[in-house]
């Protein structure tokens, strides 16, 4: 609650413990986790983070396009409901209407204010002039270069004279040179106090861009987005990319983003060979049965004796094979030396015997790595299922995860909590 203390008339925007979930209540995914910060007049804040950190969602909450799930957004101490009338947005994809000329696109934003046509036209021309599009008023967006299109986007955003100008990756769809030019022109207007705007909030994933333009950096973590750093960038303008102060801040932000919050790579499980569906107990039963004989048994005989179809037996032998306990040869299941040793061992020793093989299984390995990287070493099963859906049907994905949990538990690599539906590594 410490952020509630910041008040006074210079604060434009205040976020208090703003969280956002997506999805249904029973399987919702947390996107933004308890975000709190304020924006004061005169600030140019950059919101940084990996993709997936929810920074664009946060911008949509600030502008009122999306409502927060919990927490509140205050604008000049008023709780924000619906579209923020004092904010405007510059889009990554420009979001111009292709059937309107540059002039008409800007005029449209002015129309809502009820200005009569001559004033509207006059104002729109001034705005286009300001962003350097004099002479291109009657061009359609498709006739303009990317940089020029975004200039129309700026002119349109400024037309409503917003106190808070929000920008969602405004330069990332542009080529390098256009982006650099447009940044320079924006800073000229901003620093020269030629904009009607009192503060700017820019979302970007480009660290250098943030340090070049903004005087404050707010860094979000990934999955879910939390504020993991919020500090001023005290460099004077114009900023020099090569200067030591500049590179120091870039490095600092880079470190925060890459290490400060452990990057959670959702494992690409579907790329690995799928696990055969067999619980370790079942495999154990098979191995014991075969070891009781000569260490080699005909599959049909086994199936008949166990009252199974051969098709149902195959996942079990497949699992045994994957665990290095034996393999199928000419219609027989043959135990390996490890299999024979396993069959003869006691329960606790058996665990020790299988543990290295399971730990080295690529499928299991990916899960363990993801859990190790995660905060408090736990992750919702949803994330793994999500990854499995890329290669499997819903049913099959669940079956895969079930087998993985069975093996992981057996080898005591990780376990599963049915109530919170999370996989986790037991501490200590």
């Amino acid at each position, binding site marked *: 609650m410490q952020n509630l203390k910041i008040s006074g008339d210079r604060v434009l925007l205040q976020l208090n413990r703003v969280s956002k979930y997506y999805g249904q209540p029973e399987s919702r995914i947390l996107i933004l986790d308890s975000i709190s910060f304020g924006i004061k007049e005169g600030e140019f804040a950059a919101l940084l983070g990996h993709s997936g950190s929810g920074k664009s969602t946060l911008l*949509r909450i600030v*502008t009122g*396009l999306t409502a927060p799930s919990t927490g509140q957004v205050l604008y000049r101490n008023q709780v924000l409901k619906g*579209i923020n*009338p004092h*904010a*405007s*947005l510059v*889009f*990554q*994809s420009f*979001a*111009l*209407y*292709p*059937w*309107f000329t540059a002039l008409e696109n800007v005029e*449209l*934003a002015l*129309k*809502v204010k*009820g200005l009569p*046509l001559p004033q509207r036209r006059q104002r729109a021309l001034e705005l286009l002039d300001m962003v350097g599009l004099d002479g291109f008023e009657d061009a*359609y*967006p*498709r*006739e303009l270069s990317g940089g020029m299109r975004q200039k129309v986007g700026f002119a*349109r955003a400024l037309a*409503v004279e917003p106190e808070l100008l929000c920008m969602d990756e405004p330069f990332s769809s542009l080529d390098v040179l256009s982006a650099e030019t447009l940044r320079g022109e924006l800073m000229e207007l901003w620093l020269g106090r030629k904009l009607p705007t009192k503060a700017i909030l820019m979302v970007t994933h480009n660290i250098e861009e943030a340090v070049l333009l903004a005087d404050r950096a707010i860094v979000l973590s990934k999955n879910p987005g939390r504020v993991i750093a919020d500090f001023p960038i005290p460099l004077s303008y114009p900023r020099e990319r090569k200067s030591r102060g500049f590179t120091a801040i870039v490095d600092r932000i880079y470190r925060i983003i890459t290490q400060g919050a452990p990057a959670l790579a959702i494992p690409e499980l579907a790329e690995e060979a799928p696990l055969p569906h067999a619980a370790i107990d079942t495999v154990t039963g098979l191995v014991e049965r075969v070891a009781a004989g000569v260490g080699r048994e005909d599959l049909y005989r086994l199936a008949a004796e166990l009252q199974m179809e051969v098709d149902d037996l195959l996942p079990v032998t497949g699992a045994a094979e994957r665990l290095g306990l034996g393999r199928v040869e000419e219609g027989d299941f043959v135990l390996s030396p490890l299999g024979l040793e396993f069959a003869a061992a006691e329960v606790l020793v058996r665990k020790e015997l299988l543990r290295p093989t399971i730990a080295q299984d690529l499928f299991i390995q990916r899960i363990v790595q993801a859990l190790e990287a995660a905060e408090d070493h736990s992750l919702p099963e949803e994330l793994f299922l999500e990854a499995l859906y890329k290669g499997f049907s819903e049913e099959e994905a669940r079956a895969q995860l079930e087998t993985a949990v069975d093996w992981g538990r057996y080898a005591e690599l990780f376990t599963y909590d049915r109530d919170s539906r999370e996989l986790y590594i037991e501490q200590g």
Partner: protein
Amino acid sequence: MQLRSILHAHRSFSTGDLMVGLGLAALLYLGIQLSTGAPDRFAGPEVNLSPAALPYYALRSLSRMAAAYLLSLSFSLVYGYVAAKNRRAQTILLPLLDILQSIPILSFMPVVVLALVSFLPRGLGVELGSILLIFTSQAWNLTFAFYHGLIIVPKEMREAASIFRLNWWLQFKALEVPFATIGLVWNSMMSWAGGWFFLMAAEQFTLGDKDFRLLGLGSYLKTAAEQGNISALIWGLGAMVAVILLLDQFVWQPILAWADKFKLQTVSASEPPRSWVLDVLSRSWLVERFHAKAIAPLGEAIDRRLVGMVNEGSSSVRRRRGSILGAISTILLIALLAAVIYGGTRAVSLMTTLGWREWLEILSGAVATWLRVLVALFLALAWTLPLGVAIGTNQRLANRVMPVVQVVASVPATALFPILLWLLINVAGGLNFASILLMLLGTQWYLLFNIIAGSMAIPQDLRYTTDNLAIQGWERWRSFTLPALFPYLITGMITATGGAWNASVVSEYVRFATKTESTLGLGSLISQATADANFALLLASTLTMVGIVVVVNRLLWRRLYNLAEERFRWD
């Protein structure tokens, strides 16, 4: 594309379908109640066969088409908008539209015209009937096009509209309609082409002693055929083709060229569609003055009023207004439901007065018409498949043949029907032939154009591979061409059978000169029952036809379509 997205849903039958069925029965029942007041005899207009009368007749026909089209467009904008914006309305409106687009509209023509003339002056009643008929042939695909456009507006464009606080009117005008324009233009052209078929049918419509013909190109052609006046027939057909070609040059091509600016592409196309008419118009001083002095200020005034209106009023006022609207719509819905159930049950009880003889008649009629539809479909396939594949795979042939095909295909089949009657009416079983031929004429083009499109879409490397393997003759058709064309064939056949059922209504029971002829069929039952004021039979046969078409659509065509979507697509 609309058809594809609609059909893709694996939906069989639901209570919604039952309600729509009851609603149709109730509607028919209402029509029948009104029809009992219709006069027994009806005199038709005098048709002047002099070529000098043709411009006037063409104008009459065109104005009916224009009125129906404007009605369809307004309807589709409202219906599509409500269906896209109101979740509750959507659950009713979309299934309803799905059924409406698949039923054979012409089966309603007899009862609709009869009902209208019973309480309106003759001229007005029949005119309105023809406009309504054309409307029902044009509205559904336009509505789907607009609805589809509304739901695929890109997210950031919508967000921009919200950020800049465009109210519903400005969003509609500046974002939603422009975004849907391309789809609306293409579907307007299709609707217009289909509308001619129904216009001609309506203008030639007679029922026994009741002559409902309307002055226009349709009645001109029919009268010319009845009198065996060959030069008038040629003049009439010439006028028909001329009107269609002129419309293309002066209306559709300019609109198509103008609509190019609504494309979502981010770079200019290398060869945008052009129209010399549009070029002339856009350079015209007069047009520019008109726009600056009349159109622009008018639009401005409308915007001002609507922007002001919506920005007024606090949220509590709006909420109260919303709840009042909600209450009104609930009351209306309940009233409508009650009316549907009342009318539907009355209709059903009217049908129970029919004896087994009549039901047998309906059954045999349905079988006969179904057989005709199948014969027409196979005849159409027999010639369109080889020609379509030839045109689709041979660019030089396509360049030579396509312009001719397009002009011939533009002549509505119902315009040619009087000529068929004239040739066949005195032959034994002639009406049977004429009926099949009308179905063929009305449906073959859908197949041909789909087959051409399909064979043009076959990837070149696949064709080379097939050549390389030296697969020839029947084996080539069986293992390469037909599977490759399958989705297109299905699309073509769905449209074609729908058209064929429609054709049965106007072709199985006809009055030519002074003679009334009929042949066994469901279409002839519908017309005959209307002429004889046998309303129970009319109701039962119309509902049977609608039922057959909807059920076959769901059980056969939709499954084949889904199969085509799943297994026979290139992408």
